[in-house]
């Protein structure tokens, strides 16, 4: 075949593949949102699940998902940033650094079900807590730590180039330089990473099945306590999230409208992911503008 004709044909094929993939995404998201229509109804978003009858909502699961996200971030963000600082500023080349890099790679490629089982072993059985929100949040933090560390490391490396020597030259210690000069300018980029990680945390289910459990007790917002199981804010109660709920509906199906609830809950998850992505993108653009001096 003529090389030019072949070139044309295969270029066409590449266009077709790209078009197909983008169309597939649009179709997928469109389908999920279309099938889950009505998911914005307050009775669904805030109503509690029913047993054996139709019309239940996902109120407790929705709250649990957000609460789990916040607790997991509170646990993992300081460690992620600390690890990032260490890798970017303090770590010296050598065996220790190699070991840390290997561990980060290992951790980030761990199947989430394995992390969930580790959580079951340590945070559920060994501590004697049982299925709790805190166990789930800890498991998710482990899952999330490598990505956060990596994002922070990159952000700090980039942010420290123009200012580090100036700050050290003025007599600041390294930590002062990092905490007062470098970190503030690295924060937006770290935040972008955190938001993207949030999307992942929000949809995570495999690591939560056997750590946060598959039941969502009724929530009582009348008082605040972190350990009393009567309170909605308790860390020590089982906490089924939306993602886990979708899985449970599919495998157990205790309600007649399980399929519908799963459709709507999927729509809620996808909307949240779109939102997180959009936020990260807006923030990313802001950072780009501030670095390139357009604003």
């Amino acid at each position, binding site marked *: 075949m003529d090389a030019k004709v072949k070139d044309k044909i295969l270029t066409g094929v590449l266009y077709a593949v790209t078009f197909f993939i983008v169309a597939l995404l649009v179709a997928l998201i469109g389908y999920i949102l279309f099938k889950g229509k009505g998911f914005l109804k307050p009775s669904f978003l805030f109503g509690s699940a029913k047993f054996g009858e139709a019309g239940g909502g996902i109120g407790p699961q929705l709250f649990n998902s957000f609460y789990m996200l916040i607790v997991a971030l509170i646990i993992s963000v300081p460690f992620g940033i600390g690890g990032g600082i260490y890798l970017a500023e303090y770590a010296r080349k050598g065996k220790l650094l190699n070991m840390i890099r290997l561990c980060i790679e290992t951790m980030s490629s761990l199947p989430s079900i394995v992390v969930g089982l580790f959580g079951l072993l340590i945070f559920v059985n060994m501590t004697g807590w049982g299925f709790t929100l805190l166990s789930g949040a800890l498991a998710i933090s482990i899952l999330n730590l490598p990505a956060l560390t990596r994002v922070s490391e990159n952000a700090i490396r980039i942010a420290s180039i123009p200012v580090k020597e100036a700050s050290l030259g003025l007599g600041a210690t390294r930590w002062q330089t990092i905490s007062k000069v470098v970190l503030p300018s690295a924060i937006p980029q770290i935040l972008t990473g955190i938001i993207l990680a949030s999307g992942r945390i929000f949809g995570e289910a495999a690591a939560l099945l056997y750590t946060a459990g598959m039941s969502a007790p009724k929530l009582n917002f009348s008082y605040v306590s972190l350990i009393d199981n009567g309170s909605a804010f308790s860390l020590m109660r089982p906490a089924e999230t939306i993602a886990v709920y979708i899985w449970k509906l599919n495998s157990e199906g205790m309600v007649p409208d399980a399929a519908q609830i799963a459709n709507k809950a999927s729509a809620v998850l996808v909307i949240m992911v779109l939102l997180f*992505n959009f936020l990260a993108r807006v923030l990313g653009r802001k950072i780009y503008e501030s670095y390139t001096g357009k604003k």
Partner: protein
Amino acid sequence: MKNNLENFNGWLQKQSAIKNINLRSVNMEKKLFWNKLKNEYIGRGFAVFCGLIIIVLTLSIIIFIASKGINTFIKWRYPITEFLFTSNWAPDSSNPKLGAAIFFVGSILVSVGAVIISAPIGIALAVFMHYISPKVGSKILQPSLELFVGIPSVVYGWVGFSVLLPFLKRGFGGIGFSLIAGILVLSIMILPTIASISADAVKTIPKSYMEASYGLGATRWQTISRVIIPSAKSGILTGVVLGLARAFGEALAVQMVIGNTVKFPGNLLSPTSTLTSILTMDMGNTVSGTAWNDALWSLALFLLIISFMFIIIIRAIEKRSEIK
């Protein structure tokens, strides 16, 4: 005499001055130390601690899962070869049979199948993004891939369950739950991994390679297929292995569509089980300390070992490309 006295007084004054200076410098040192502690050591300590905790966590994950996982072979004295290479899975009988080959085969088939579908598409997307239409690539394709990554795996599983399974049932017969359903769902899930890492690899190819190829009269396709892809080989391979690892470890999406029957798949349309699906299904139903439960922990241990092997493979690929 007077002179001596004056000398002595001078000496005394000197001494006390030295003492004062010494005292002041001790104070200074103390103050310096406190300042340093406040401004440097505590912060540095925290950073080092965070670095070390990553090692501690990784090691403890390995140690704890291993300590549960080896029970099958130590406590129950089940031969490891029988565990890996036989397929008689009857963990709840009085004389438990723990042949887990079905799950290993299921996992391998489903993830390799997903890579076979996903790798060519992913590489095509990577090439498209940089050499055919960078504008469409960065404005449309890149954000689309990011969204694909963002969609949670249960949602993939659920859409697979509610759309793909009925479709397969109508089109090809059978029960819908099947190996091919798992492969298709996974191939979409790992596509962004393969595409974005391949894109990074393709991006780093020096422009001069391309120009040299064009200068010799090659068409764009010839340049892409004979120059760009071969020189980005190791990066693309890294992407493919990472995709394979992700497919291997994915649990819920696969579990929801593969059928979870404990038998080898006869063809693409028959249901089977994977390592992750059996773990998801059975871990909650078994009592700690039984042979069944211990066998599941052994499966988790092998999952861990396999994901570690993928890391080693990737490192080997990277090292080889560095030497060249």
